[in-house]
């Protein structure tokens, strides 16, 4: 999608690779764009991987590509019906429509997508709890993109 989105996705993937391979630094260059991702590994005995243990800290919390695919197939995924820019609050400066943990009713506005100067409210199709907010304020979105998860 947009360049910024590509960069963020790339950083996430590189950070994921750092963890998986136990590396401290990865540098990736293509054309004249270069991204470097690094962390400090504290020298300890072989790290014990506990089932369900949180992944070791890398730069930024990672949504690995596998997690994104899960969102896509999640029955509560709210997907964008159009192309445009997502806004999470009714006006700049006002609080967001919903936050993670909120209970929402069917028909309640979750966010707005602006396209060609018209603002289109995106509403919850059924009542539930917002478990994930995937897009950020002013983020460009495409048709079918997961915006939120409401369970």
């Amino acid at each position, binding site marked *: *999608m*947009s360049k910024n989105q590509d960069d963020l996705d790339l950083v996430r993937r590189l950070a994921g690779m750092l963890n998986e391979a136990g590396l401290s630094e990865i540098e990736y260059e293509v054309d004249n764009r270069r991204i470097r991702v690094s962390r400090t590994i504290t020298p300890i005995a072989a790290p014990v991987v506990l089932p369900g243990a949180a992944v070791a800290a890398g730069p930024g919390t990672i949504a690995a590509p596998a997690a994104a695919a899960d969102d896509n197939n999640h029955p509560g995924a709210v997907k964008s019906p159009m*192309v445009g820019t997502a806004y999470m609050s009714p006006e700049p400066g006002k609080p967001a429509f919903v936050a993670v943990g909120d209970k929402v009713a069917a028909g309640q506005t979750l966010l707005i997508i602006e*396209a060609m100067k018209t603002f289109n409210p995106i509403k919850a199709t059924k009542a539930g709890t917002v478990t994930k907010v995937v897009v950020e304020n002013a983020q460009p979105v495409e*048709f*079918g993109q997961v915006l939120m998860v409401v369970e």
Partner: protein
Amino acid sequence: MFDKVLIANRGEIALRIHRACHEMGIQTVAIHSTADNDAMHVRLADESVCIGPPPAKDSYLNIPAILSAATITGADAIHPGYGFLSENARFAELVEEHGFTFIGPTPEHIRMMGDKIVAKQTAAKLGLPLVPGSPGPVDNLDEVKALGKEIGYPVLIKAVAGGGGRGMKVIDSEGQAEEAFNLARQEATAAFGNGSVYVEKYLGKPRHIEIQILADTHGNVVHLGERDCSLQRRHQKVLEETPSPALNREMRERIGGLAADAIRTMGYRGVGTLEFLFQDGEFYFIEMNTRLQVEHPITEAITGIDLVREQIRVATGGTLGLTQAAIKFAGHAIECRINAEHPETFVPSPGRITDYHPPGGLGVRVDSALYAGYRMPPYYDSLVAKLIVAGTNRNECLMRLRRALEEYVVGGIDTTIPLHQRLIAQPDFVNGDYNIHWLERLVGLKK
């Protein structure tokens, strides 16, 4: 020069446009429906935006979605390809109203040539010869019958808002007029939203010969020769070649010059094609296409000119770097349109491509978005590849085409490759002796 161009199309032409852009250092944005998530041009483009579900009306014809995609990606210009919105004057207007450059002619010229009656009237004013026919739309059966008597049967009844070979019916005699007239109007309303029809003489054995023109915004116009597109099935072109076996240099220069003069007088910009019927040494204007055409690669093969690059340059206000005298026509080129259809029954054959091996070698070009593993969606037209072969003369071209077709492997779907192999083996074709009814007679659609 543009930094970023949004490609408002799909399939092989979207890939074609992407290639021209990347060769010019221009970034590309591919818009696509969910059915085209894995399309080759989507994978290759710098950015992609999914704009809707599979149906064309919700995606490739969805003007707000396309304009939104251009806005969020910061595109400078939009290339409409062919088909879809490429000849939609309202789309061209909206693109410009929203601050993007439409890579194509002005909305006024699109509108003018989109109405087939206005197009003919304009052509007549510009000094182009016309097919005898009704001066305007025909409103009732009596008019049709009167014209039939005046012009002489058989006549053709055509949709004013049609084009591209659609919305036409033949009337062999007065007895058939009523049914044809009513059917034609109903079909025109259903297909084009406009039931207006007009009448033209039906020529018995014409060739379809079209002239490619190219114009900039500084009054410079050139013609790039002709294409003979007489091999058609149900008014859809199957194979095209240039030069036409039926024209000599003098005829080419004459009709090319007339076409270029008309375009110059119009003040047209970009690429365009003037389509004529040619019979007994005479040309008859039928319509003008205000866009890039499917068969443009054969013109590129014999002139060495990249037409998509020229479109983009003209759209930035650039000057044509060419004079008519500088344009040389070298050799011969043929294009085979390969469809995902059974080569004899023409039943469409979407599906997953298993093996894919396109032919190669000197003078062989394949414009296609196919790849091994690609799942061909059933929602769009069946053109899957264009095989373009060039040679120093027509014979060499035919030999090379026969060789290229025998190498071409497309596994998993039916294609019309065997049909092309059959066509080019026919003595009539080898002799260049064919007209627009020839192919249908060969495959048994006509007597």
